[in-house]
Structures are given as structure tokens and as C-alpha cells.
């Protein structure tokens, strides 16, 4: 039974649809990850600010994001926004916004931890050379934080990829949902459909995330010297 079950993948457009679903997953994840990394860098620097108000606000932002589930943010933004303002925004834009909102906070915290771990003497010798605050960040601090940021940042990226499983709730049919559609339709002819489809999806997530963690390991090793 399970031997023929694999044929389900080649029936009709199944494989292509699952890959398209994966495309949705990857599309939302990649854009969100890139935006989160850029914005997280900026917010992370704010988090190291000496201004107590700025520090408090950014800290609050982080705590809120950590406690409010992504699912709730998706719901509130996709349906709530329309309800209160009547504006319709494409669900993928909403998804990217919410994922970025979440990712930025997490990324910022990673950046904060790494910036504060740069020895004070590095800031001071930069200052002593006459570098402006901006130049200090660009030429001295940021490049040094990169090696400390990469491993947790990639960890965050894989978590974002995995969290795309929530997207069907706002109508984005990502890879797991497509898989479920396929299973529901074919389970009559292929009783082992779930096994094969979920197996494929398991594998697909793995091949999306694994190169990332491999890359992070590589960079970690490279920078250890």
C-alpha cells in the first residue's frame, strides 16, 4: 500500500502545487527575514541607546511581540484593519508586515546583545581617531557584531520559515495547507497519502532550513579563528 502511495506525488499537478505552496512559504519568509534583519539592525542600535525612554519603548515592543502570538497579530491586522478602516490590503503584504514586526523585535534583541558585548575600548579607540557616531557604527561596531549575530539570526530565520504554517488563516495557501488539500482528495485512492505528503513536506522544510543552519555553522567556524 505504501509502495504505491508515492505515486500520489505525481498525480495531476500535485507536486507542482506543493512546490507552489512552498513558494508562498519561502516568498513570505524571505522578504520578512530580509526586512527584519535590516530593521532589526536599526532598532537593535536604538536598544543600546543611553536614552531611558528609547530603551523603555523598544523593550516594551520586544516584550509585546514575545507575548502576543503571531496568529493573533495576523488576525487582528488582516481582519481588524479592514473592519476599523475599511482598507483592504493583500494578505501577503499583511503576512510580511506581521512577520517583519515580529522578526524585527527578535533581531533587534540579538543585535543589542551583540553590540553590548563589543568591548568598550573599541568604541573609545574609534572615537579617539575622530570617527563620528555613524562612522563608528558602520566601520567599527557593526562589522564586529556580525559574527555574533549570524548564528542566532539564522536560528530566527528558520523559525520564521516554520511559522508560515499559520498563514492559511488569512487565506495564504502555503505548503502544509496544499498538502492537506491533496491528502483530503486522494486519501480514498491512496490510504497512505498523509504519510507521503507529510513526509515530502517534512523533507521540503528541511531542505529550505538546513542550508541556512549549515551556512551559519560554516561562518561560525570561519570566524572562530
Amino acid at each position, binding site marked *: 500500500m505504501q509502495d504505491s502511495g508515492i505515486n500520489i506525488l505525481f*498525480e*495531476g*499537478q*500535485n507536486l*507542482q*502545487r506543493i512546490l507552489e505552496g512552498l513558494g508562498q512559504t519561502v516568498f513570505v519568509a524571505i522578504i520578512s527575514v530580509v526586512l527584519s534583519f535590516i530593521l532589526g539592525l536599526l532598532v537593535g542600535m536604538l536598544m543600546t541607546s543611553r536614552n531611558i525612554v528609547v530603551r523603555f519603548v523598544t523593550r516594551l515592543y520586544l516584550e509585546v511581540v514575545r507575548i502576543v502570538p503571531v496568529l493573533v497579530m495576523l*488576525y487582528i491586522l488582516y*481582519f481588524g484593519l*479592514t*473592519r476599523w478602516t475599511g482598507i*483592504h490590503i493583500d494578505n501577503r503584504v499583511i503576512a510580511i508586515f506581521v512577520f517583519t514586526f515580529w522578526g524585527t523585535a527578535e533581531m533587534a534583541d540579538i543585535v543589542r546583545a551583540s553590540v553590548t558585548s563589543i568591548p568598550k575600548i573599541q568604541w573609545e579607540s574609534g572615537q579617539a581617531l575622530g570617527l563620528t557616531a555613524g562612522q563608528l557604527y558602520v566601520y567599527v561596531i557593526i562589522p564586529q557584531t556580525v559574527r555574533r549575530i549570524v548564528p542566532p539570526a539564522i536560528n530566527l530565520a528558520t523559525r520564521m520559515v516554520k511559522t508560515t504554517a499559520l498563514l*492559511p*488563516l*488569512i*487565506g495564504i*495557501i502555503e505548503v502544509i*495547507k496544499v498538502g*492537506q*488539500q*491533496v*491528502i*483530503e*482528495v*486522494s*486519501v*480514498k485512492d491512496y490510504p497512505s*497519502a*498523509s504519510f507521503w505528503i507529510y513526509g515530502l513536506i517534512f523533507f521540503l522544510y528541511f531542505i529550505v532550513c538546513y542550508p541556512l543552519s549549515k551556512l551559519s555553522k560554516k561562518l561560525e567556524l570561519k570566524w572562530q579563528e
Partner: protein
Amino acid sequence: ACGAGATNDSSEGSVANIEDKTTVDTIKENDVIRIGVFGDKPPFSYVDANGDNQGFDVEISKKIAEDLLGDSSKIEWVITEAANRVEYLETGKVDLMMANFTVTPERAEVVDFANPYMKVSIGIVSPEGDVITDVSQLEGKQLIVNKGTTAEAYFRENYPDIELLVYEQNTETFQALLDGRGAALAHDNTLIFGWIKDNPGFVAGVEAIGNEDTIAPAVAKGDTALSEWVNAEIDTLNESGFIAEAYEKTLAPAFSSDIDPASVLINQ
């Protein structure tokens, strides 16, 4: 022809309210209707191996589009989940909800149902050796249901003491029964009849309990123009036999042969 007549009705209505445009006008203007369906609930509404929407609900939806816009392909399908069907309607992200929406008083408070196109009763299936023939036998046992279905609502409301095992996907729900995770499974009886056909060793010990519910298209609360148009359309389709044809095409092959279409369809 009847469908065309219905279209005329509603355009007259829109002429009368030229000031604030009705949804029907907007749909016509856009030349596309947004219809909410499920993607994973065969045989009612699902996406087939080629990525096309199929099923009983879909057949009727297509006919509605054809009669409203003159082309059954002028539909923007929106794949919904049980939990967000009302949100889609309330926020105007779909015009018409055709996702196997059972009429209940709670739902009627928040959306407007049009005339029903299908009847449904809850059945209970259990393994041959240990058949459940009465709800009372379920006390202290676990009953498997599918999330967001009439069965779940019915048991939550009327038998809060029966412990429910709730699964998100249809396949998982039936798989759970096969794996022996619960004493019995409650679902739309039509689905149950179909399923026992392929799964010997299980019987529908209870064929129908509770009220007979109906399934109907739904529109946003207060969208009378569209609901009236759909009402007329459904009546027409019932009378013209289109719904019976759709039944034969989509549901009959999935159900066991001993099911009387009259137990599913309205006005038969």
C-alpha cells in the same frame, strides 16, 4: 433562462438605489464575484489534483457566477477555514460564502443566510464490535468530531458532558477512528455513509440525530440586494433540477448507493 431572469430582478433593484451602490452592482462592475469555499472538504468543496476547485458547493457557485456575470469562470475563489468564514464576510473580503455553511441561530446573528440548498443530519459511526446505537452510550467515552462542523457544535451545545476529540482535518478525524482513538465518530451523516462504504468493519449505529440542519449560502449582514438575488437563484436552481444534477455529479459517487437524495437535497 430562469437564472437570467433573476439577474434582471437585481439590476432593477440597483437602478432604484442608484445613490448607494449595492454589492450586486459592484460585483457586476468588477465583473468577478469573490466566493469563499473550503479547499479540503471533499466532496463538498475541495481542490483537486490539478489545483481546480471542485465539489458540490463549487458546482453551485459556478452556476451562480454564470447566471450573475454570464461566465462561470468569473469567480475569485477564496479558500477559507471554519474559524474565519464570518470574518471574511464581515470585512467584505468575500461577497458570498459557499463553504458548506450550516445555518445556526448564532451565525444568523452575524451573517445573512440565503435559502438553503442542502440538508444535513448528524450521524454516528462506530466499530462493528462495539456499536454505539444511542447517544447515551457515549457517556464517559470519547467522541471524535471534525473542528467547526455541525457535529461539534451540536455536541458542545447539547451534550457538554461527552468528551470530544476534535481534529482539524477531515482525514485526520476519520484516521483517528481507524486508530481507535475514540469510541465513535460524529459527522454529517452523508459523509459517514460514504465512508463506511469504503471501510468495512464500521457501521452507522446512529443514522440521524438532533435537528435536521440546512446548509445555505451566506452574505454579509444587511446585504439584502445580494441575499435576495441569491434566494431567487437558489429557488430557481432547486426547481430547474440543477442542484439535483450537481448532486449526481459530485455527491452521489462519494455516498453509498442506499442514500436517498431526498435526505440531502431541499424540495425533492
